[in-house]
């Protein structure tokens, strides 16, 4: 496994830090999205005076300190204790530390309104994606994508869509015993069954024993917009995606 040694400056003091693996960081990103993003935001900057993803805290914190805060909360503040084991808390620390070393999005200066027009028009994004109740469901629903992911991550998905595909966005192809092939976005799978949403927007559940074959589609069907949109247009689309915070405002 590739090891990533993450060092970063916390409030001006360099503390002894841990070494984290890529898997830790990836898992930590999911934990962060599931547990932290609602209050702290995808950029980690929604609480005044704190920017989690840039290593800015109200006081100097070691990795142990952060893991402790995640698990125990901060009494008397809005930071609740998380029902989380030490290992998972550590993966969030790994994600925060690694995020601090990732450059910010270059797609700055975008206009969300123009981005919406591109999203629904020239870009053809609604042919696969849905946002605020409009568009196809075959691709991931992006209605709250701006509340879950950083601008830099959205930019990457736009220009290099195959680089990072979250497990819940993988496509799977099944072939039934009568030879019918169905491709859809994987929603769940286990030892005996598989669930997907197909191109007709139908929720489908298959018993594996009834299938001739099933496999994850390793290539993404989403094209790169690196050369399809200008830099400004890309920035506009990213700005629009960042603005998609879902139905409920934090």
């Amino acid at each position, binding site marked *: 496994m590739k090891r990533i040694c993450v060092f970063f400056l916390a409030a001006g003091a360099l503390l002894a830090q841990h070494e984290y693996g890529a898997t830790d960081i990836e898992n930590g990103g999911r934990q962060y999205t599931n547990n932290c993003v609602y209050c702290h935001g995808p950029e980690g900057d929604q609480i005044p005076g704190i920017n989690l993803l840039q290593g800015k805290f109200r006081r100097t914190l070691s990795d142990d300190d952060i893991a402790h805060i995640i698990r125990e909360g901060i009494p008397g503040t809005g930071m609740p204790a998380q029902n989380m084991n030490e290992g998972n808390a550590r993966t969030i620390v790994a994600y925060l530390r690694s995020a601090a070393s990732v450059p910010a999005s270059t797609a700055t200066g975008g206009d969300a309104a123009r981005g919406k027009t591109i999203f629904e028009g020239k870009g053809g994004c609604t042919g696969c994606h849905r946002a605020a109740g409009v568009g196809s469901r075959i691709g991931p*629903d992006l209605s709250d994508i701006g509340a879950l992911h950083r601008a830099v991550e959205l930019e990457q998905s736009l220009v290099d869509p195959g680089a990072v595909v979250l497990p819940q966005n993988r496509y799977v192809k099944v072939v039934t015993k009568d030879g019918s092939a169905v491709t859809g976005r994987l929603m769940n799978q286990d030892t005996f*069954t598989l*669930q997907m949403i197909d191109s007709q927007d139908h929720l489908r559940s298959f018993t594996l024993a009834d299938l001739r074959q099933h496999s994850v589609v390793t290539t993404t069907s989403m094209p790169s917009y690196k050369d399809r949109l200008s830099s400004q247009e890309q920035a506009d689309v990213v700005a629009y995606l960042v603005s998609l915070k879902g139905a*409920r405002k934090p």
Partner: protein
Amino acid sequence: MRKCVLTMMLAGALSAQSPVTFDRILNADKEPQNWLSYSGTTRSQRYSLLNQITPDNAKNLELQWVFQSRSLEKYESTPLVVDGVMYTVQNPDDVVALDAATGRVFWTYSYPVSPDARPCCGRLSRGVAILGETLYIGTIDAHVVAIDAKTGKAIWDKEVGKAASGYAITHAPQIVKDKVIVGMAGGEYGIRGYILALDAKTGKEAWRFYTIPGPGEPGHESWAGDSWKTGGASVWVTGSYDPDTNLTFWGIGNPGPDWNGDNRAGDNLYSNSVVALDADTGKLRWYYQFSPHDEFDYDSVQVPVLVDMPWQGRQRKLMMWANRNGLFYVLDRVNGQFLMGKPFVKVNWMNGFDERGRPMKVPSAASSKTGTLILPGNQGGTNYYNPSYSPRTGLFYIPSWDNYSSLYVKQDQDFVEGRTFGGGGPRPTTSAPAVGGFNFRSDDDIYGAVRAIDPKTGEKKWEFKMADVTDAGILTTASDLLFSGGREGYFYALDARDGKLLWKASVGGAVRSGPMTYMVSGRQYVAVDAGNSLFVWALRQ
């Protein structure tokens, strides 16, 4: 035949999934394989036309799958099933889509409940509604959320009440045409209740009906002084709808403070009533108050059951209602006319009706500082538990508590916004109902029962008696089966004609929900929540 079954199974995975139009909801009887609204149909009879499971083969029911919710709260919901996909809740307000044949999860929508939420009597939801391809849930912090039924993503989220003041929604919304209708819980916090309709597409409020009339409105005089401002009159369960009259019917909860009526002299309309509202405008068409000026927490948290049948020589559109106050009622649902009221359990708070159908209260039946013994007790002769009516047997089935009393004690209490506003409370007079554990009660003590009554007379036809009390709803089917359960942790099937026990399963937790049934790929399933889990059975193959 075997090939046919296999084809159907595969077809199950391929089953057409079309939007749930309001026309489909209105005509849910035409697709009994589905369960499209909280009570199955807009008439809320909880009677299914499915008949694959019968009194003869019910002994062959076998557990198919279990969904264990990640919540320790009471599980009181009834799931929906739409074209092979089940939608249920995970308390307090998560929504889960599952494969109805296997129980495997398609998606989970996790709702972030506000820390201001303070619902009485359980941090829970009793279910969701669907229209088109959108699900709707009312939340315990008084929001209504529209969710994409295919992806589980929220489409809109509308705050419709102030959670910090005690407003909450705990029931499944009702769909009428293009509107989502919900009512406010919070009667134990001194709210002023209301029912409102939202535009299903946008969440914009279309109309609002206050369950306590404001100044200048008829009925306002039934509240002394400013008591109307904090008079409660909540909604806890889903209403019913009659397309012929375009009326939506809702049961209204107790007046507040619950157990002390000294400062709210009057009938306290429309607490403890059924209200019939024009579904397009929310205007009141008629009401009937079951328990005027209540001090016993007899809120009408029951689903109105709509039945068309001959009544005393002519066909009528009826409403049947087994009320928490211990009486079974038949009303004319076109105009609210009182037709009959009879106790279905022991009752001592009233001794008859006047010529207009108003109950004649026993003079001594009032909460007191020293305590007054009243039957039925505080949980009522029945409660939110779903009753059922079978057109085949012509019987009305009530989850009931009998030999049950409480000692009602009133106390002085000032209103403080966001704090409980009870004005006293009930005290037990018999051994407390057990939750799990052991029972040592004698036959004379309180007991739960499925009670079958003839709605034409109000007379008991049979009962299935349980050692403990029950919070379970009832389902009947076209094969004369009746499904229910109780607090002891059994789920069982009875013969709806005579109450004979046909099958039972120990589910290890209290059944506090209404069972339902559906079909996928030609196979009938029966589902119920018990404990913290949802259980599904079908006939052994």
